[in-house]
């Protein structure tokens, strides 16, 4: 059995989660410090991908990044690089889909930290960068990590946006979820069932991980 779809799913989800992490955490911190009105607007905008059907995300990726589109055309012209119908497009699709999960959990975790700690840091003359990295993040690392695991798990099974942006190309863009659909459509029910089992196994592992992270942590957090 060719394990490429499993490998590809792990690769796409890991890179996408890393991107979403790198952007979602600063975004959460920035929104946290905004005045109320701007906060509401930015919050709504950044959370939209959570409620959009994934196919709509796929649609926008195709419209903006396919070789026929403005940006995609320039990429092809300048760098001889196409994004769509390759695994790179899956990364973008998954990153957009999981971004709100990371952003939301990080924001919740940040808000759960006693804001007096941050103010105490400020009156002590500590820089905002220090306060963010050494006081805010360490005091809510479990919440932030749980968001990361949740995002990675969601990314592994992403179907709608991925299949629109990257299609199913065996050995190139196939993922575990697109494999199920593909084998079912061509009547290879055994193969479809095998990938269903892989999906179930992966989901189970991640549910265990998510639970482990959301358990009340031991030690100083309890105080």
């Amino acid at each position, binding site marked *: 059995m060719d394990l490429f779809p499993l490998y590809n799913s792990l690769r796409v989800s890991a890179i996408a989660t890393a991107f979403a992490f790198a952007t979602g955490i600063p975004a959460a911190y920035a929104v946290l410090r905004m005045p109320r009105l701007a906060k509401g607007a930015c919050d709504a905008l950044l959370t939209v991908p959570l409620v959009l059907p994934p196919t709509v995300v796929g649609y926008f990726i195709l419209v903006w990044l396919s070789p026929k589109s403005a940006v995609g055309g320039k990429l092809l012209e300048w760098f001889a690089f196409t994004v769509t119908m390759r695994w790179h497009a899956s990364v973008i699709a998954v990153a957009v889909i999981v971004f709100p999960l990371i952003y939301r959990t990080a924001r919740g975790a940040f808000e759960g930290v*006693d804001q*007096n*700690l941050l*103010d*105490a*840091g*400020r*009156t*002590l*003359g*500590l*820089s905002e960068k220090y306060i963010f990295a*050494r*006081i805010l993040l*360490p*005091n809510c690392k479990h919440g932030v990590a749980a968001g990361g695991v949740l995002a990675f798990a969601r990314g592994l099974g992403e179907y709608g946006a991925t299949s629109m942006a990257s299609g199913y190309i065996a050995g190139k863009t196939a993922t575990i979820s697109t494999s199920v659909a593909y084998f079912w459509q061509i009547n290879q029910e055994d193969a479809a069932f095998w990938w269903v089992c892989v999906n179930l196994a992966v989901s189970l592992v991640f549910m265990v991980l998510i639970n482990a992270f959301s358990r009340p942590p031991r*030690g*100083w*957090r*309890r*105080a």
Partner: protein
Amino acid sequence: MLECRIRKKLGEFALDLDFTAEQGITALMGASGSGKSMTLRCVAGVERPDEGEITLDGVRLFDSGRKINLPPQRRNTGFLFQDYALFPNMTALQNIMTGARGKPRRERARAAEELAEAFHITPHLKKYPYQLSGGEKQRAALARCLAASPDILMLDEPFSALDSHLRWELELEMAEVFKRFRKTVLYVSHNRDEVYRLCDSIIILNGGRNEAGGKKWELFKRPRTVQAARLTGCKNIFEFEGRLIGIRANYIVPAHLAKPRDMVFPFELITEIEDAFTYILMVRVDGLPPLRWEMTKEKREKLRELPQKLAFPQEHILLLDRR
């Protein structure tokens, strides 16, 4: 010296302050929700007033007219939070070291260790805040404040989170710290005894405004406003012949001890409550709300039979503003 003239609107509540705190210890007294903590937060710069000026030792920290608003990092204020706000992810030593910023690591560690020594927490330096007792937490937080060599020390009800037997010990230490600090100290509290022992001056806050203030003995002797009288512990405040009058519970005397110009009233006993060292008599005088009359146990035992009348010694009657 701190000069503070600010306004800030917070929904229904409005802060409207104009006060000066000289070098030395100034208490901010007020009921909960009177704006004490918000005042400290505005001075520290973690809260922005809508308008006004804040000047500390001649340095403009905030000036809405000239668009000056120094970030809290550059104000150099020492702020002891009510719950101490120690960083839970750092040991006591690391916490204190964050105060001594901008020096090489070794020097910071040494400064922190010296402070820890002075505050008797050396054995606890490797512990995390959740492993420290209330008193140790407060000492660590105070050491952290002082490590930053602040120009002003602001304390937000520093003893409210402590058991009463610890308070006294820490209060003595606090008095020592104040003596050595020699700059401006703002001390938020609503415990009048604590304030009287620790502070030089008192500012009374009421509904976001500072209404009375001055040296502590002046204020305790002549509170002038209802709020000041209440916060300095006056239990009996009532209207009499169109004037607002206060009399402290322990200044009421039986009528046979009255002098010619004292106010004398017949009364009726409602109930008598035995306190640890005093008796509290709740009494009714016609036309007045129930009065609280307090006397030491010795005095009470000498009285035996309660007299028919009580008196307010003229020199202890407080005439209060209607504010």
